[in-house]
């Protein structure tokens, strides 16, 4: 259940998989994304509401065949240049897009988590997304006759999220902004959770979300694994790194050099062994 990150990614993430990595600004599983890059996964369908820099890197590294998303930007900074380059120019390979709104994506995860084939929302009406996205269809309320939008459930092969803590049985605890992580994990066939630390007991925390171990396939210690995003109670968001990414990612050569130096050149999961875990206080 508790596995080093490199082994967990090797066992859980396969070429061609649909992979959902979630975390809404907070707790983004960046280190896990780097490990997917290091292991050279290809043809992934990447699912995520806000692709953020983790998907920008994975797309730039050539892992992705398709992106299912709702907002592809660098929050507070600007564009995701690797995403744009792939979407517009097919570099390093063409990227198919399936785009929704946040409301649609959140409801698609919720439907997946609930074992339903689709979700219903008041959404998309009058927008050009309706014509462009095949996974938006009208549905009529059988009681009132109102027309609403239906979207199909998301059921990824694997969900990857980052959390503050897990216990040794693999129960996961996260708090602060918890986004759609619970739904993503419950919607997926397999789930990998990287954590800041593994502890003996999960002392209850206000606002916590618990993922019981039976819905978690593997937990991998990855202290700092959400950087440059943040882990509430552990470290803050590195806004400078987000700003710096803009320049790095604008240029293919500079990006490639960065990737070689910072991801591919780095040892696989440096802090990922359970024995390397530092004690950190929440």
């Amino acid at each position, binding site marked *: 259940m508790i596995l080093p990150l490199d082994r967990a990614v090797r066992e859980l993430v396969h070429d061609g998989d649909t992979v959902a990595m979630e975390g*809404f*600004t*907070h707790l983004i599983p960046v280190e896990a994304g780097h490990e997917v890059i290091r292991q050279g996964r290809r043809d992934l369908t990447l699912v995520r*509401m*806000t692709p953020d820099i983790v998907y920008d890197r994975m797309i730039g590294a050539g892992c992705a065949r398709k992106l299912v*998303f*709702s*907002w*592809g*930007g660098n*929050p*507070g900074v600007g*564009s*995701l240049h690797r*995403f*744009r380059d792939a*979407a*517009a120019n097919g570099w390093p390979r063409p990227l198919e897009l399936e*785009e*929704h*709104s*946040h*409301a649609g994506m*959140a*409801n698609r*995860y*919720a439907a997946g988590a609930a074992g339903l084939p689709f979700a219903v*929302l*008041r*959404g*998309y*009406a*009058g*927008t*050009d*997304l309706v014509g*462009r996205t095949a996974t938006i269809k009208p549905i009529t309320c059988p009681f009132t006759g*109102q*027309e609403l939008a239906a979207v199909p459930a998301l059921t990824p092969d694997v969900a990857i999220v980052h959390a503050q803590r897990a216990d040794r049985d693999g129960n996961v605890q996260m708090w*602060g*902004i*918890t*986004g*759609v992580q*619970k*739904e993503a994990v419950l919607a997926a066939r397999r789930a990998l959770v990287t954590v800041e630390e593994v502890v003996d007991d999960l002392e209850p925390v206000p*606002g916590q*979300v618990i993922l019981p171990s039976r819905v978690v396939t593997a937990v991998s210690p990855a202290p700092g694994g959400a950087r440059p995003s*943040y882990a*509430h109670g552990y470290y*803050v*968001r590195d*806004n400078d790194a*987000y700003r710096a990414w803009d320049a790095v990612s604008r240029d293919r050569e500079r990006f490639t050099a960065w990737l070689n130096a910072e991801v591919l050149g780095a040892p696989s999961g440096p802090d990922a062994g359970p024995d390397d875990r530092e004690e950190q206080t929440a």
Partner: protein
Amino acid sequence: MTAADPLPFTADEVMTVAASRALADGTACFVGIGLPSTAANLALRTHAPGLWMIYESGTLGASPDALPLSIGDGELAETADTVVPVTEVFNYWLQAGRIDTGFLGAAQIDRFGNINTTVIGDYAAPKVRLPGAGGAPEIAASCGRVIVIVRQSRRTFVERVDFTTSVGHGSGPGDRERLGLRGAGPVQVITDLGVLEPDPGTRELVLTRLHPGATAEQARAATGWDLAVSPDLAATPEPDPDELAVLRSLTGRG
């Protein structure tokens, strides 16, 4: 702005102050990052201490000490009345019609206030690939009213958006009702030059207010359609010193 005599504030500051003033105390506001967040935080610290800010990350009633860079900064969670899952923000709060005001930005906006944040050019082979929809389509649909904040230029203010990401007033009167959109849609488009509002009859955006130093000619020149000017064209009162002081303490500009 190109006024000969420099004003003691920037065009962005006037925009932000104008947006802030549009937020009534005690109302609930769906806040996006950037100018909307700045405007809402300014309102909270000046005339609207009871403004209730929702960020789409799930923080309800946030009152951050500093201006967040993202919509999910830790500060938002720490100061919020409560943090809820993203599904609840969109379903239980936005879709249920509990938000009075939503802010939207735009890469393109057209004469009926429809908004594009998806692509410039053809969808399949875009000139510019933009971030996409995010929360905007449902904010535009379900907030009680929408305020758009966007700098005015011919590139942005276009006859017809290349892609309708978020519906404003569609093609004119009755369209929102036909589509089942329950909010009033864009009631103000606040730019660096002034304010545009939909004509009550035609739903076409009309220049109703000019910021200090701006002219109707400037606004018309910065608009890609034949912008109508209201016969009751008003002037935005200058930002007062307190507003500017708070705004600058927020943005770190002295």
